[in-house]
């Protein structure tokens, strides 16, 4: 796992000149303080850009590469971010030229692999990101969790199966085959009183209707069927006449059926055109339907009890709420009426399209299957012309409906359809007349009718089987995809739930550490419905979701922070470091301490980088984490020179080691003395004048020494006489630093003398054993004295 050793930024964001951060070979954790707008986020941005080639919060605002270069960096000079990781020669430098071209040099392939691994890990948490997840819809939360754990592949699989399944169900070949099979089934029931689903059933049926002719043999297969047909044709005196009568009978039936269908078709077309074209002329109203969801959701918002503003919740324009509710309701009603009309038009359109296909098929059969029957040339010609126009009508109607344009029939369609109907009616009559002229006996007539029925049924069965094969081919796939999809949803949910359980274990544990003894318990992520994920928790033992229902802003922030920490600990495969950029703004002091302890206890082997603009929080971190080897820096903006980084003393030992021998440590010494005095005063409960907020933190050494001595005068007069107080009071540090901006420098041996004085002051009030200050709250039983926590160091105390 990877940690940071060095990060050096130059010409990037707020850093005009080199801004080096050295985490040491031990990759120490680090806290950085900087006032608002001091430029500390430059460090976070630099790391994010180095790893991911983007800075999320800038890119979202469409501020890209040009926002990364320091505004005063010279043309021709590159912005650079150099990173060194722990491990063997893992380093790289990324540059952004003045032409906004990015280039990167990585030390080796191992570094490349590390950087690639880091790209998928959770490293940086900014305040703005904390509640982003909480504010997402349940479906988006689910997707976000799926993304975190790399389940895009699962989503992709599911989407491919579901998309294919839906598309297959709608394919015209499938829906057409189903409609065709239904029509044929209806025709068979009408003609022979039953559905004859296949060839074998047809042969059985054939046997039943030829039985009365007592032909002497039974139809059991194709050969015996052929023999039976031959025998039927041979009944009476003229085989040819029977055949002709049978064909004329079939033609008459076909013509009658088509003429009847045309009547229905013409009526349906008229109904569709009237209904649809009026809608197409109100195209703008129909287009407004896309706002239906929006308006319905808006209506829910403005009619909820929580919404009481006299303003549109979307654009915030002033609007009397009652009038807004009424207006929205009116628009929803209007859209509902349009939707109903559109749905009705679609039903009519589907019926018309189906009728066109059916008439076209029948016309094709009549025009192409009766070439052996002479004298029907007009009918044949009418079918050809009508078919051509019907195909054009089908295309035109589909395109008009899809494009919401007025539907117009192809030129001449009405006339040719009317002509086809007329030809069908006259053709049927003529066929019956021609059949009558053949002069068949009753037995011959029966044979001809039976043969005609068998021939018609044979064609219907063949078409029915063909349609059924198409349906079967589709349904084998559809049923399988349906089953696969349904099972996969279960598997996917189980996999996701397992992940949620794992995350929840840490989230619940971390949250409880931040908020012990509170009425919120058992915080976890759960599945909601089929498509959502939500936080759930027990509030006064009652299960509650979503989080915003009862949790305060501070608790919501906690939730966001613990989710990030849990995800990082569970799913990071490469990064063993975290950058927490201003994440505790809404936390009170006790919760900040608990967060530090959570980091200390659960992330003790991680490198943590905390950036903050709050001095109080920074001091808490110092107090709590200095003993755990953390480093501390402060950043400030130095006008045109960009941001400047300083060490921030956290302990006497550290300041001695770091500052001795350097040019100017005056400010550090002042801060150190103030810090020590503040700690002693706090521990001994020294009373000082009240001040607001950060001014309370900006007390100077002379005031603190004076108040400390005053308290000691009352409580421990001998200590007040200690020489260290007069030494400090007379030192250059206190004498000179009546102002935080005093320019006088303390140099040379004076530094050592002052450090010794400060150490003496610390040793006067602290325990060498437990390294804690003596506290006014720890009274030594039976004595007028107070002690440190371990009790080994005491001072007299009245």
């Amino acid at each position: 796992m990877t940690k940071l050793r060095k990060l050096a930024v130059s010409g990037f964001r707020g850093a005009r000149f080199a801004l080096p951060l050295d985490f040491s070979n031990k990759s120490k954790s680090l806290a950085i303080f900087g006032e608002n707008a001091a430029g500390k986020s430059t460090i976070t941005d630099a790391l994010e850009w180095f790893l991911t080639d983007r800075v999320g919060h800038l890119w979202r605002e469409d501020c890209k590469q040009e926002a990364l270069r320091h505004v005063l960096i010279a043309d021709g000079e590159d912005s650079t971010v150099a990173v060194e990781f722990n491990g063997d020669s893992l380093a790289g430098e990324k540059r952004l030229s003045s032409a906004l071209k990015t280039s990167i040099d990585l030390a080796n392939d191992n570094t490349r692999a590390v950087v690639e691994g880091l790209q998928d890990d959770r490293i940086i948490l900014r305040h703005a990101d904390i509640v982003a997840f909480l504010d997402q819809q349940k479906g988006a939360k689910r997707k976000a969790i799926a993304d975190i754990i790399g389940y895009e592949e699962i989503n992709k699989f599911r989407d491919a199966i579901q998309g294919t399944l839906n598309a297959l169900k709608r394919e015209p070949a499938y829906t057409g085959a189903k409609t065709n099979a239904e029509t044929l089934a209806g025709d068979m029931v009408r003609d022979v009183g039953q559905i004859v689903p296949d060839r074998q059933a047809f042969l059985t049926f054939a046997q039943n209707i030829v039985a009365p002719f007592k032909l002497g043999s039974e139809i059991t297969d194709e050969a015996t069927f052929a023999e039976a047909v031959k025998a039927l044709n041979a009944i009476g005196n003229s085989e040819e006449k029977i055949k002709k009568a049978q064909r004329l009978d079939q033609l008459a039936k076909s013509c009658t059926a088509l003429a009847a269908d045309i009547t229905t078709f013409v009526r349906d077309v008229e109904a569709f055109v009237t209904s649809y074209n009026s809608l197409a002329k109100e195209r703008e109203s129909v287009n407004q339907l896309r706002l239906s969801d929006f308006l319905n959701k808006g209506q829910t918002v403005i009619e909820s009890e929580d919404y009481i503003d006299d303003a549109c919740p979307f654009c915030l324009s002033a609007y009397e709420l009652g009038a807004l509710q009424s207006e929205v309701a009116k628009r929803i009603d209007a859209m509902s009426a349009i939707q109903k009309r559109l749905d009705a038009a679609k039903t009519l359109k589907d019926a018309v399209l189906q009728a066109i296909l059916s008439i076209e098929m029948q016309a094709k059969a009549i025009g192409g299957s009766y070439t052996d029957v002479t004298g029907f040339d007009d009918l044949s010609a009418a079918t050809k012309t009508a078919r051509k126009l019907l195909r054009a009508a089908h295309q035109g109607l589909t395109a008009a409906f899809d494009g919401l344009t007025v539907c117009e029939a192809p030129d001449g369609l009405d006339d040719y359809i009317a002509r086809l109907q007329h030809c069908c009616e006259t053709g049927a009559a003529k066929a019956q007349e021609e059949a009558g002229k053949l002069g068949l006996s009753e037995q011959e007539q029966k044979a001809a009718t039976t043969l005609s029925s068998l021939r018609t049924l044979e064609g219907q069965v063949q078409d029915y089987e063909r349609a059924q094969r198409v349906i079967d081919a589709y349904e084998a796939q559809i049923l399988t995809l349906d089953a696969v999809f349904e099972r996969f949803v279960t598997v996917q949910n189980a996999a996701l739930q397992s992940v949620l359980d794992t995350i929840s274990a840490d989230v619940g544990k971390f949250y409880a550490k931040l908020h012990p003894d509170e009425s919120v318990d058992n915080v976890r992520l759960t599945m909601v419905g089929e498509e959502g994920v939500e936080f759930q928790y027990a509030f006064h033992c009652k299960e509650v979701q979503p989080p915003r229902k009862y949790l305060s802003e501070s608790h919501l922030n906690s939730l966001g922070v613990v989710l990030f920490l849990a995800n990082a600990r569970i799913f990071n495969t490469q990064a063993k470091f975290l950058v927490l950029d201003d994440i505790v703004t809404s936390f009170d002091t006790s919760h900040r301490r608990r967060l530090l302890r959570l980091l200390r206890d659960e992330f003790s082997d991680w490198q943590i980088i905390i950036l903050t603009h709050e001095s109080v929080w920074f001091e808490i971190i110092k107090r709590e984490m200095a003993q755990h080897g953390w480093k501390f820096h402060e950043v400030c903006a130095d006008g045109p020179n960009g941001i400047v980084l300083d060490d921030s003393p956290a302990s006497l030992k550290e300041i001695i080691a770091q500052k001795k021998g350097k040019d100017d440590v005056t400010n550090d010494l002042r801060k150190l003395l103030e810090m020590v005095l503040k700690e002693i005063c706090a521990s001994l409960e020294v009373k000082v004048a009240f001040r607001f907020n950060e001014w309370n933190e900006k007390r100077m050494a002379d005031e603190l020494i004076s108040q400390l001595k005053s308290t000691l005068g009352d409580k421990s007069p001998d200590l007040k006489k200690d020489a260290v107080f007069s030494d400090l009071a007379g030192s250059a540090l206190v004498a000179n630093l009546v102002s935080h901006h005093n320019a006088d420098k303390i140099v040379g041996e004076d530094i050592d003398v002052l450090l010794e004085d400060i150490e003496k002051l610390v040793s006067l009030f602290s325990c060498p054993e437990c390294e804690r200050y003596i506290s006014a709250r720890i009274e030594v039983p039976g004595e007028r004295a107070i002690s440190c926590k371990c009790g080994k160091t005491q001072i007299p105390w009245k």
Partner: protein
Amino acid sequence: MAIEKIQSASEVLDAFMSEQAQDESLDQTTTAVIAGLRGDDKLTRTNLLRKLDEVRKAALKDATMQSEGGS
């Protein structure tokens, strides 16, 4: 904390598809097409529709030849 191993997306899908391949109630050609496209990292709606169309056409051709050859 001992973190229970979380199955990767590929592991979840491998196990799932292998289970479906054993299920005789499903159309094995369809499951094979899905598995094949997934193996080639080409499982998309368009690709799956195309492959299934090819499979259907081949199956219909065979069925038509058998049926109409027999009658």
